[in-house]
């Protein structure tokens, strides 16, 4: 199982029946693969659909039914189309139960940076700032390090997405819960030791009771 699959399978277990969930493009969108349809979860795409369904078979695409990445999707039974004002009203008003986003850095205050690398990558924040500021629960799904550098840092060196403390960080090594006291190490990936996690992490990690192995969906 590769890093991304571990992350997606672990994040999937955060999703409970009846939730309204927004999955970012890339790795976060893989989470949907591990959420059983029987849960009755509604996925929102911020471009304007509640009840996002799977990609349609070739030849059955509709040009006016896409996800936030522009890919063709279908509509689940009970789906609703909404305009951007309603879409972000749901996000900013706390009606979105959970957002799963990728990250560049998370720091000891639980703050996320995920929209800009000055001088290198300036794509614009899209909906990320609204999602992190407004969603009821923010889960960051990202690999633990990039080019050998820990992405769990003491203090973000990249521009912040929001001052809001995110609720959970899931990597291929660990599950970390940002709290007022700092980053609490909650779970480790199957076969990974506490020492391996500490060695891979720039930020201080707090131990608060047992650190069991992740259970994957």
């Amino acid at each position: 199982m590769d890093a991304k699959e571990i992350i997606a399978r672990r994040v999937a277990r955060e999703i409970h029946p009846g939730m309204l969930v927004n999955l970012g493009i890339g790795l976060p969108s893989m989470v949907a693969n591990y959420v059983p349809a029987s849960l009755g979860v509604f996925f929102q795409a911020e471009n304007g659909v509640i009840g996002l369904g799977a990609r349609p078979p070739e030849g059955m695409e509709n040009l006016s039914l896409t996800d936030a990445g522009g890919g063709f999707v279908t509509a689940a039974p009970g789906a609703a189309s909404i305009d951007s004002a309603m879409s972000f009203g749901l996000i900013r008003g706390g009606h979105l139960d959970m957002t799963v986003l990728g990250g560049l850095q998370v720091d000891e205050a639980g703050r996320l940076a995920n929209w800009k690398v000055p001088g290198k990558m300036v794509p614009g924040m899209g909906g990320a700032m609204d999602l992190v500021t407004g969603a009821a629960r923010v889960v960051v799904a990202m690999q633990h390090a990039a080019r050998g550098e820990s992405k769990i840092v003491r203090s973000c060196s990249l521009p912040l997405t929001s001052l809001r403390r995110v609720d959970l960080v899931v990597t291929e090594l660990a599950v970390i819960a940002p709290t007022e006291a700092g980053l609490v190490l909650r779970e480790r990936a199957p076969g990974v030791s506490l020492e391996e996690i500490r060695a891979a992490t720039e930020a201080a990690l707090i131990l608060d009771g047992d650190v069991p192995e992740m259970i994957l969906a």
Partner: protein
Amino acid sequence: MKGALTPQAAAELIPDGASLMVGGFMAVGTPARLIEAIVARRPRNLTLICNDAATPGKGVGKLISAGLISRLIASHIGLNPEMQAKMISGEVECELVPQGTLVERIRAGGMGLGGVLTPTGLGTEVEEGKQIVEVQGRRFLVETPLKADFALLGAWQADYVGNLRYLLTAHNFNPVMALAGATVIAEADSIVPVGVIPPDAVKTPGVLVDHLLIRPGL
């Protein structure tokens, strides 16, 4: 959507002292069976947020006549002399709000905005005691967001995930209030199986709705 309830069970959710947003304009679009059930249960000391006080014995007028309301936030009470008398006697504390400001305050509450910047009310009694902000050289009143413990909606059609449609002038405050109630209860003229309401016809997505009233006769 958590489930469909009898009007009695829905009314029992509402404790003394609760704040209620109730959809409707002169009782059009107001959930009638739900109001009846609340009147029967008689919770006290309620705060009512709605467009108008309707007329005595119609729509939210029933809640007022029954003496359940101690505070009202509305834009118009002129067709309910009973409500006017209760305001003058001090039995009901009444905040009168311009209609456009009222709907935007509810929307702001429901959509996580910090308030409404509006020229409506500037230089009038509505301005009294309020913060004024200058933006791009113009002055605006800062009107605060409104939320409530319950939003009680009148709809035309619902499905069993809670998606709602409204009919003609019975939309009014309902779609906006659906965003601003901690618990949202919708009474629809009919409930249809999931998939019957096309996605583009949904005016209130079911994810906002906590409870439907069960169909009459069930």
